[in-house]
């Protein structure tokens, strides 16, 4: 079986686990929509520009929620050893986790963006493209950091501490693409971020999960 086959088998496993457990996605939906409800009441009057910035805060923290759970099954049941021992390329583990996490995030964003439209108005095509690019970057970098955190003693604290500084450029690019009249350079910046972190995570994952 090819590298793509390994990724497919591992991603399918993660999707099945979520389908059976229904632990992560419902919590993410409640969190994302709940945050937007809070923002709706926190922002008096017409504040759609400020709301666009807060949408990105909601996306960032929802992604963090997904990443906190990304290796939950492996952590609780010692399963990372089994995956590391398997003869597939270790980067396939990272890619499969990233694909599954992106799928969860996209699903949640369907609800979150609908809620945003309801509370604050619609978003342009550039903003939706920025959300899609941000999902890739957040998950590419975030899954690597989640794997680093999973072996640590204070793992619940370690992931946010590592993730937020790394995710900051995504916030800058996302907000920029959403509020400016010329979003192209921000979308380009997000695409560059995705490429850099995807390559770094793909190449570095093996060293994170092995001694």
């Amino acid at each position, binding site marked *: *079986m090819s590298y793509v*086959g*390994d990724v497919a*088998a*591992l991603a399918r*496993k993660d999707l*099945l*686990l979520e389908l*059976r*457990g229904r632990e992560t996605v419902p919590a993410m939906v409640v969190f994302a929509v709940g945050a937007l409800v809070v923002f709706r009441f926190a922002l008096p009057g017409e504040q759609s520009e400020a709301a666009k910035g807060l949408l990105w805060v909601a996306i960032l923290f929802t992604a963090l929620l997904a990443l906190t759970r990304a290796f939950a*099954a492996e952590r609780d*049941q*010692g*399963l990372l*050893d*089994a*995956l*590391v*021992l*398997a*003869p*597939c390329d270790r980067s396939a583990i990272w890619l499969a986790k990233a694909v599954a996490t992106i799928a969860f995030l996209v699903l949640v964003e369907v609800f979150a963006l609908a809620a945003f439209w309801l509370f604050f108005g619609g978003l342009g095509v550039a903003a939706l493209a920025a959300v899609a690019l941000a999902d890739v970057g957040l998950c590419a970098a975030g899954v690597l950091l989640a794997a680093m955190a999973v072996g640590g003693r204070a793992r619940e604290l370690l992931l946010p501490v590592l993730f937020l500084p790394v995710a900051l450029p995504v916030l800058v690019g996302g907000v920029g693409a959403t509020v400016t009249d010329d979003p192209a350079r921000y979308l380009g910046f997000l695409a560059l971020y995705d490429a850099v972190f995807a390559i770094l995570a793909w190449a570095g994952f093996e060293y994170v999960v*092995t*001694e």
Partner: protein
Amino acid sequence: MIRARALSKRFGTRVALAGLDLDVPRGGFLLVTGRNGSGKTTLLRLLAGLAAPTGGALEVATERARVGFLAHEPLLYRQLTAVENLDLYARLYRVAERRERIGMLLERFDLWDARHDPVGTFSRGMLQRLALCRTLLHEPELLLLDEPFNALDVEGATLLDRELEAARGERTLVVATHDPDRLAVPATARLRLA
């Protein structure tokens, strides 16, 4: 097959293994005994490639795809069924005719009737049997078994003895246990860790 010289492993200031010399030929059967905390699991993790030595030299002359490792934990996803778990590993290990192989192992370890049940509903003994199926799935050349009799009933222990008997001479076996009397198959070498 396995050659270690002055092998040592430390975790911070704690010494788990110190100055271990070891030779296990291809087809050999090494029985590792010792009290809790004597380094049996650490040795098996080193042999599996899951940990790196902090001193000495270790050579395991087999590729990762040909190692079967039975750990303390069953290394199975509790939310997935027995078949789904074995199918995942069979795909990752590129097992030929995986459905037939999975079916054969489940029947051999008397888990066929529970094949579509989530592993989380299994008893500890059933989990250990399924973990053995996972370990043997890809017909490994090197079998590393950490306390394999844990939670097995008499019937399960007999099944395991039968597997060990069949593997003896054909595969290289390293079995770590604190209770060597349960092993019916004679080892070719013994190592007692202090």
